């Protein structure tokens, strides 16, 4: 896809894939990217726009980055302005919570809790949602696709 044609949402999704380690398909599959982008734009538009434009400089193809890109991104994440917003973005995907510059953290939505990646990373499931089926605990935890 032509980079200039890329929507802000897709850019946000690709950035999220790079920062969380989950695939772009997984990110899109949550159905949460529009909501999360809106939250950032509402809370701290400058910070998210700066992070997105830093990320936009790299040549990403479906969230996949070259080793050189990764080195450059690591550098960007050392930046004292970009680091906190990057951390918030990762926490958001893994916990479904907002906890950046607020006195209290809060869960962004019901879906944000259900889709939070910490459950999948742990091979678990959110209590009260996405039940795995009786007795499935006798099988090894869910892990990720082997390439």
């Amino acid at each position: 896809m032509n980079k200039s044609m890329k929507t802000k949402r897709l850019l946000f999704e690709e950035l999220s894939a790079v920062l969380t380690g989950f695939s772009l398909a997984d990110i899109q599959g949550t159905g949460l990217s529009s909501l999360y982008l809106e939250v950032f734009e509402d809370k701290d538009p400058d910070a998210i726009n700066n992070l997105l434009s830093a990320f936009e400089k790299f040549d990403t193809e479906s969230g996949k980055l070259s080793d050189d890109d990764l080195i450059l991104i690591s550098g960007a994440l050392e930046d004292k302005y970009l680091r906190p917003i990057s951390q918030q973005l990762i926490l958001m995907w893994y916990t479904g919570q907002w906890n950046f510059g607020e006195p209290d953290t809060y869960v962004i939505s019901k879906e944000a809790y259900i889709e939070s990646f910490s459950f999948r990373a742990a091979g678990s499931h959110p209590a009260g949602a996405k039940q795995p089926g009786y007795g499935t605990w006798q099988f090894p935890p869910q892990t990720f696709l082997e390439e």
Partner: protein
Amino acid sequence: MQVNFKQSLFKNLQTAIELEHSTIPPYLVAYFTINDSTNAFAVETIRSVFMEEMLHMSLACQILNAVNGKPFIDHAKFVPEYPAELNFKDRDFDVGLIKFSKESIETFMQIEKPEDVSLDVAGEDIPVLVDKINLGQSTIGEFYAVIKQQLIELTKEHGEDAVFNGDKKRQLDPAEYYGGGGGLIVVDSLSTALLAIDIIVEQGEGSDHSIWDGDAACFGQDKEVAHFFRFKEIYEGQLYQEGDSPKGKPTGPEVGVNWNAAQDMIDNPRACQFPESSTAREKADEFNQLYSQFLEQLHLTFNGEPGRMRRAVGMMYQMKYLAQSLLNIPIPDKEGKVAGPTFEYVPVEERKTYNWSVSKTTDSNA
């Protein structure tokens, strides 16, 4: 080679298994695409029907095992290519994988319509696996009546022990079957086989030409209308009540149905429609792998390894979550449209090693 005196019965029961299965993906697609916070009635209704179709499929497997047959499930011919054409005695129509809409509910009513229903395509090739679903010139109810008659006549002719000589260890324990519509039963005799068929027919078509199904009598549940009438309730946005006629419209309380609150899935999605490296393709391929490996587990469950049911159930939940993911994934160059579960068969030799918690590849000995 001597023809097994049960050959025709085997074929009819395999047809029953395939018939019951073929309706489940279209119902699931409608169910997954509904925004449940705004359409609770439609969600619950469609769910109640496909849960019963799953029960019917399992009951048909139990009967086939009871008479010492072998259900074929993990096979390319088992999975219809949607839209699947159904040729009925009095009408032809396509059943597709279509989002929740007035159109999809109309099709479901066609499937479940109690009278004059026959599915007409010819079968051959593998003796027990039917090539296409073929009920001849009968309705679904008449088709099951034929199976009943066969069971009764074979028992009369050969004796119950000779007909119901299947290994009892092949029966799925009803305790392993949960969350479904009604309950599974063990089939090991003529009377239990006939009961299993009554459950299938009465939930689907209603008992004694009324709108009500047989669950109040069979399972002690509240009175419930049969499948066709449940879809009709969604279609009309109104419930049936005591005294309503099967030929008329429901006259009970109105129920809210929001036809617009559905995810905008493309009709009859196929994985190959999505560009090779797109996210839609990635998830669709993953779904088809999971679906096919699920069929494998189900096949093993009903072929001597009933302990596999737990994996199969776990995989059904995973399929639900994957399907919901697909319905969030945009399709390149189709503005506003989303992907969806495609329910395609992946041949055994093309199956990949995924580490789903329940896949065979991660735990082949249990």
